[in-house]
């Protein structure tokens, strides 16, 4: 029985994975091997300096923001340095820094009730990303890699002067790297399937981005393993299909209304992007490397930041993103709800398979 079941599975896989009939078109699949917000900093892009990234500096700024004078801050910090009662006193002040209707509330879950520490923004003119809105504004960047103007990446502008968000193209930010390392071992992998002209040729393609039931498989050194087989998660909340084009080895998806895929509580339960775009380049080993971008609800981003301590002054990030948000104004308040973002994505060759129907049913019940 087991052998027969296994045979049936193998047959199913072969059916699913064979090149598309017609010979001219093939389907090639890839698994996402790295994914994180892309912050591409350059020297001097924060002329006002980096936002205090160390705990002591953050606390001092927070105290000043709350209205404590320099002498009082020095006194409180001296107590904090000694530990014990002095440290508890500072902690108590910080815990009570968010106030609503005269009552202290949790500053992480009510960042709007914390005074804005006015984190410094990136002032550079260059970054990476996409022209999401087709307009040119003073806030736009010029793309460092393509030279294209009108790049919308306000998340970078808002957070790029915080140490743990700073990165380069070759070296991801500490926050991005940390989150990815947590996610890759715990969340189902994401799959990219490209159907179109055979490998290495230009032309129109269909691109499907979907979640797997399986985690990213790893080599013995921890690196992502190529040519593994992943079962598709049929959950419709994670299925994205777009028209794209491959030209000179670059896969492009022009503006699409929506991209949505189940993610992880460590980042956000769902990654929602509007005005979605994608640009990936394939290398000689068949690996895709590039960006996806769009406008993302910044409140969802904040709540991803709020429960991990690596990011720095978390209520400060709320205020920064709120001020930098550049899309989807609330009809009542006028406050923009979306912020332009760019995510780095790499993907390596993989196979996709339809899962056992019993597992599919289980997945659909979620």
């Amino acid at each position, binding site marked *: 029985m087991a052998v027969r079941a*296994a045979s049936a*599975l193998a047959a199913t896989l072969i059916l699913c994975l064979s090149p598309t009939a017609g010979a001219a078109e093939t389907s090639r699949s890839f698994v996402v091997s790295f994914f994180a917000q892309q912050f591409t900093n350059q020297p001097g892009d924060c002329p006002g300096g980096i936002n205090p990234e160390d705990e002591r500096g953050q606390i001092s700024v927070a105290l000043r923001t709350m209205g404590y004078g320099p002498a009082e801050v020095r006194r409180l910090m001296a107590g904090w340095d000694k530990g014990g009662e002095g440290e508890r006193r500072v902690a108590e002040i910080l815990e009570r820094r968010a106030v609503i209707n005269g009552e202290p509330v949790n500053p992480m879950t009510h960042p709007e009730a914390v005074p804005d520490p006015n984190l410094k923004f990136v002032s550079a003119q260059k970054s990476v990303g996409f022209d999401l809105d087709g307009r040119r504004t003073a806030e736009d960047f010029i793309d460092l890699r393509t030279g294209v103007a009108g790049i919308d990446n306000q998340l970078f502008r808002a957070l790029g002067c915080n140490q743990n968000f700073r990165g380069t193209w070759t070296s991801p930010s500490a926050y991005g790297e940390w989150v990815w390392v947590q996610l890759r071992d715990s969340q189902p992998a994401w799959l990219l399937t490209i159907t179109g002209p055979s490998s290495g040729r230009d032309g129109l393609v269909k691109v499907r981005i979907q979640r797997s039931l399986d985690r990213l*498989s790893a*080599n013995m050194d921890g690196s992502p*393993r190529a040519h593994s087989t992943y*079962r598709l998660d049929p959950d419709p909340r994670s299925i994205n299909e777009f028209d794209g084009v491959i030209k000179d080895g670059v896969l492009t998806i022009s503006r699409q209304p929506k991209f949505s895929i189940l993610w992880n509580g460590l980042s956000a339960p769902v990654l929602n992007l509007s005005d979605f775009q994608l640009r990936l380049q394939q290398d000689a080993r068949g690996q895709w490397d590039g960006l996806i971008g769009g406008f993302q609800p910044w409140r969802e981003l904040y709540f991803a930041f709020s429960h991990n301590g690596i990011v720095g002054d978390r209520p400060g990030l709320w205020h920064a993103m709120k001020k930098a948000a550049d899309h989807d104004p609330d009809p009542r308040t006028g406050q923009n709800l979306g912020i332009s973002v760019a995510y780095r994505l790499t993907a390596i060759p993989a*196979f996709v*398979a339809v899962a056992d129907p019993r597992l599919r049913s289980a997945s659909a019940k979620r």
Partner: protein
Amino acid sequence: MNRARTLFDWLRGRKRVVSVFTVLAVGAALAWLLSPSTPNSAKVFVPPQVKASRLTPEQYRAVIGDIFGPQIDLGGRLEPVMRVGGLLTVGASSVSVTAAGMEQFDAMAEAIADQVLLQAANRQIFLPCKPADPRKADEGCARLFLSRVGERLFRRPLSESELRTFVAAAGVASTKLGDFHAGLSMSLAAMLASPQFLFRIPVLEEDPGRSGAFRLDGYSKASRLSFFLWNTGPDPELLRAAREGELESNRGLRRQIDRMMRSPRLEEGLRAFFRDMLQFDAFETLSKDPMLFPKFSRREMADAEEQTLRTLVDHLLVRGGDYRDVFTTKQTFLTPSLAAIYQVPVAHDAPNGDIEEWVPFEFAADDPRAGILSHASFTALHSPPGRTSPTERGKAVREVLMCQTVPAPPPDVQFTVVQNTADPVHRTVRQRLLAHATVPSCAGCHRVMDPMGLALENFDGSGEFRTAENGVGIDTSGDLDGVPFTNPLELAAVVRDNPAIPSCLVKRMAAYAFGQELTQDQRVFVKDMRKLFRESGYQVPELMRAIASREEFYQAAPLRPSDEPPMRMAAIGK
């Protein structure tokens, strides 16, 4: 009285206790390898001289599992056996045991005996009686247990003197320890550390059909048959047949062979043979540079071995396929992890974290893989840690699969050119080997080894497919004994059709069955088996049946007076 019989009589008859308190030093080999051939026209079968052989680690594990169940933890590893004539099983006939190795046997014996008799759950299964008082010796109960277990362990009934010795030892220990089971456990441990268990020691008897000649006695015959077909000791039914003399008649012997050939345990026998012939013990020490071959971990190594064994069992036993087709078959079995190395789709269709399952898989017609030469169990096993070696792979084809001997390299040979994978001038291994082979003393051997290995250069050191090395396209053309090929698939077909392939299998299987390399004196037997194998359509089970059915398989010559048995067991017993 010949020397062999004298020796065996000594072993069987001598009163001794193999005490768990004694460090046993076995200083010498239990084999008589260098037996000179007698003049022979090669048309007459001259029985090989009798040899004792040590249980291989697999056989030890299997016998303990058979008798006491798979739940018993052996608690250690056995000393490795050296390979002779391409087989560990042959090496087991010429193996020596070091003092440290004997200590290990002793420790394992104690561990096993303790589990069997000191753990209540196991004791209920294996102890057929209850002592009158568990704090005292009980001769009757000890005798019953030790006689039953002893017959399975020694693969023959214990002589009365042996049984008396073990029962007495158990009695003394039980009394001293105030615990019947602990005392009995010490006697069981003594049995497990006894040469009668650890070594397969054939006993000869006069052959009534051949005046002045000898054959194995019934129990030795049962052992030879069982270890050949099942790679374990005789089961109770085979021991019964031996006891009742059924194995002395062709009909009785055939009935037992038929039974054993029908048994699912034949698969283990087939696996053991190929594991030995294909040198899969080398997986235990195989290492790969994780920077260069990050996919190939211990898990993939184990899977690679299992893939080939499953393929062989499926092709040869389940499908009844032609042995030669194992070199060209597209059908195999894969796990998801192994499939990633082969770059083919096999899903892990179970919740994350579950153990991976094997699935049948057929490589596509245009896939470069076919047959066991394209398995990682060949390409990765016969590659150094950080690169490929066409020479090693070619040598393995010649020696392991074709039973040919390739001379060792000259002592002063320089391998620097071949091993420099970063050489900017010679960027492919073919180029490096060509540069290396300009040395006349090297060129001859490389000509017979390298072409097959070069045809497998599409598979890197972990068995993963590639088309280029250092950016240069790989040329996989060559020839085997003048038959050309251009790629791994064509090589597989050429190997499949080479007459040395089935011929070698017969040679290896005959040596495996006898536990020793066969010489010119037994040439007629091997020749007959080759003919039968060919006529059967190269059916390996039929070859096994043919060997097991022939009376020559059970014939043996005693040691000649000039042969000094190297068996020197010091300090055995008191």
